[in-house]
């Protein structure tokens, strides 16, 4: 049996540090919002002319007077991702860009994907994304509160909060783009992390009923150990699936799968080192559970 308890203090400090660092990052550095949430235009361009580079494209775009333009390579071959901040959704804005570009570099390119999001839509999408995450956290809180006792609910929600905040902090630190699919990933992380926590909690509850003489401090450790191989195997298979999406699923799914991979790692960690220490801190005992049973 692995003694997880030994590291509670250390990991509690690490978790706290991670959360604080993430919040600071989110506050001061902020998130790199994509066109979904900030508005603007995104163009995925494929050049058939091998001489076209990020620099040459950037020079052409600067001449078009489109404000802030961000150009980077996107996957392999000669694919580029062009992000234009200017919120011009007039019907022919994209056509104008195409025209200007073909007069500058010839017709050896094509637009593989165009996304043009107006300021109104982007602020609505951002709002509904935040609401979706908040609602899902609330729903989880409520579900666990019904199925377990409030102490469990609090522990699970703090673990979830940790996963979401740290994942977002990671995105902020590495300046990774936040778009609609990242919100989907965060919600799935919420589901997954919860799933992981619940399995351990389920065992804690079962053991609380079984043993009246074991302190919660040790009981959580026993429960974590008993469910450990399941925790690892499931994390493993989920990660196998996610890593194959990340490596082979194409550029569009990269951010999404990366967020999920981090979520699974943080989620597994937080079930052990946040969700359970909370139970210890709140002095959960057999009485907590028995009260539930007699109700």
């Amino acid at each position: 049996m692995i003694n997880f308890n030994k590291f509670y203090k250390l990991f509690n400090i690490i978790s706290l540090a991670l959360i604080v660092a993430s919040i600071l990052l989110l506050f001061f550095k902020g998130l790199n919002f994509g066109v979904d949430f900030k508005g603007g235009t995104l163009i995925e361009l494929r050049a058939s002319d091998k001489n076209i580079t990020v620099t040459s494209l950037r020079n052409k775009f600067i001449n078009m007077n489109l404000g802030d333009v961000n150009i980077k390579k996107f996957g392999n071959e000669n694919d580029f991702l062009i992000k234009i901040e200017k919120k011009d959704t007039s019907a022919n804005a994209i056509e104008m860009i195409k025209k200007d570009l073909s007069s500058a570099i010839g017709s050896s390119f094509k637009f593989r994907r165009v996304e043009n999001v107006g300021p109104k839509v982007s602020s609505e999408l951002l709002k509904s994304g935040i609401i979706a995450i908040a609602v899902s956290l609330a729903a989880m809180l409520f579900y666990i509160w019904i199925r377990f006792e409030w102490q469990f609910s609090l522990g699970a929600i703090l673990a979830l909060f940790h996963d979401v905040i740290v994942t977002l902090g990671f995105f902020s630190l590495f300046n990774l783009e936040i778009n609609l699919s990242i919100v989907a990933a965060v919600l799935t992380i919420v589901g997954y992390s919860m799933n992981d926590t619940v399995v351990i909690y389920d065992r804690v509850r079962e053991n609380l009923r079984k043993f009246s003489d074991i302190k919660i401090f040790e009981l959580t450790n026993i429960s974590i150990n008993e469910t450990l191989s399941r925790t690892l195997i499931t994390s493993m298979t989920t990660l196998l699936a996610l890593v194959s999406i990340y490596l082979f699923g194409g550029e569009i799914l990269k951010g999404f799968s990366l967020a999920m991979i981090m979520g699974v790692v943080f989620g597994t960690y937080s079930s052990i080192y946040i969700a359970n220490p909370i139970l210890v801190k709140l002095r959960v005992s057999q009485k907590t559970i028995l009260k539930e049973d007699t109700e």
Partner: protein
Amino acid sequence: MLYFSKLRITLISIITIFFIFIATSNFQDPENSLISKRINLGLDLQGGSYLLLEIDNEPVEIQKLQNTTTILRNYLKDKKINFTNLRIKNKAIFFNIFKKDQQKVKSFFLDKESEINPYYSQYKSHQFDLIVEQNEFKLTLSKYGLIEIKTSSQDQAIEIVRRRVDEVGTNEPNILKRGNNRILVELPGLDDPMRVKSLLGKTANLTFRFVTQNNNDTFGAEILQFEDETNEALVSKRIILSGENLLDAQPQMNNQTNETVVSFTLDRVGAKRFGKATSTGVGKQLAIVLDGKIVSAPVIRDAIISGSGQISGNFTFQSATDLALLLRSGALPAPLNIIEERTVGPDLGQDSINAGIFAFLIGFLLVIIFMFIKYKIFGLIANITLLVNLFFLVGILTIFEATLTLPGIAGIILTVGMAVDANVLIFERIKEESKNEKNNIIAFDTGYIKSKTAILDANITTLIAAIILFFMGSGPIKGFSVTLATGIFTTLFSVYFIARMLTGLYVSRNKEKINLI
């Protein structure tokens, strides 16, 4: 838990075969397939254009206020009530009424039978709200009055949008209302929405009005620009003819001038009016005004009584075709703005499908290899279950003709990773139980029973997340939530029926074996 009757085994087998059949029909030639249902591919996979249009209702509101002002003026005159200073300011109608008539005028507006301020009994509200301050009456559109305007202009606009999109002839466009002032247009297979966008961006409000020389035209006059934006002309506000009177419009080559023109045919009322106007106005210039700009202003040489005519302008064949199309489909009640556009080219869509399938195969292979190494024969059972699970998942998506998007494929791959969880939970529990219980049947049975709550809780939490995503997400993300949620149900079914049945069959034949799992 482990015993399955013959009947149940047969039933489960039939269901499984049924879903395998449905799922595989997606890959058959639609011509020779028994089932016509297919999983739809989202715009991000088949390529296409997604346009979100917002109706700019302000002109409609202003028009409404202007019409109401006219009606009000006549109504008050009719009732012999003196009023002064009738005007529109800041989206409200103002007028002054003397003390003695105030009570009477108030009742004109607040009466449920009011002729000038319709009462909506379903909302318990009038079209206009009335505020009286001393002598001044102020009318503003009520909340429901505005909704009424919005929904009616949305109804009209969606009809016109549909006609215009249909005329362009893209395959199976999807045109839907969003809220009460938006219209969603999905155009599968269209990789350059330029033409549709420019067609939808025009209101196509066509009027024929005389060019006047002086400002004291009885109807008023306004200076309008020509389409080339260099010339302008003073045009009467009196409308001789509008787009509503058109029966048909077609692009045409004028043989004499070798110019492309748009020829039109008028309805009876239009033909009559046009005939009258042109016979009295010989020698005058008739301006053809489209969306506030003069297309051309030819001089009338003869009276046109045939009810048909031509619009000339500097048209190319394409622009003449588009104008004819716009005139045929009618004018939009209000301008439309494109507030969101997402276009994916067909080759990117195909690339996404290929990448998705490849990632799926790799993920699936890795998971089944891992499971087999970890659990041997039970790993095999879990893997068979996983495969059947996928057939269920694809089968259900097929039956409901769900839309598969790229995130949707990611959802399927994720399901592969997470679906084995239930079996892992069960197998791990059985392992624990086997430590104290030497009877295999009992150990397996207890394992299944004791792992149940954890499996249920774990899956419900994921389901909650998926449901919230479904309601909050849009387009591709919705596709993800659909596959994720469906995956949970098929997983539970396949684990508790397929895997349990196979485990039961295996265990009952090997019950004497030690360390079975």
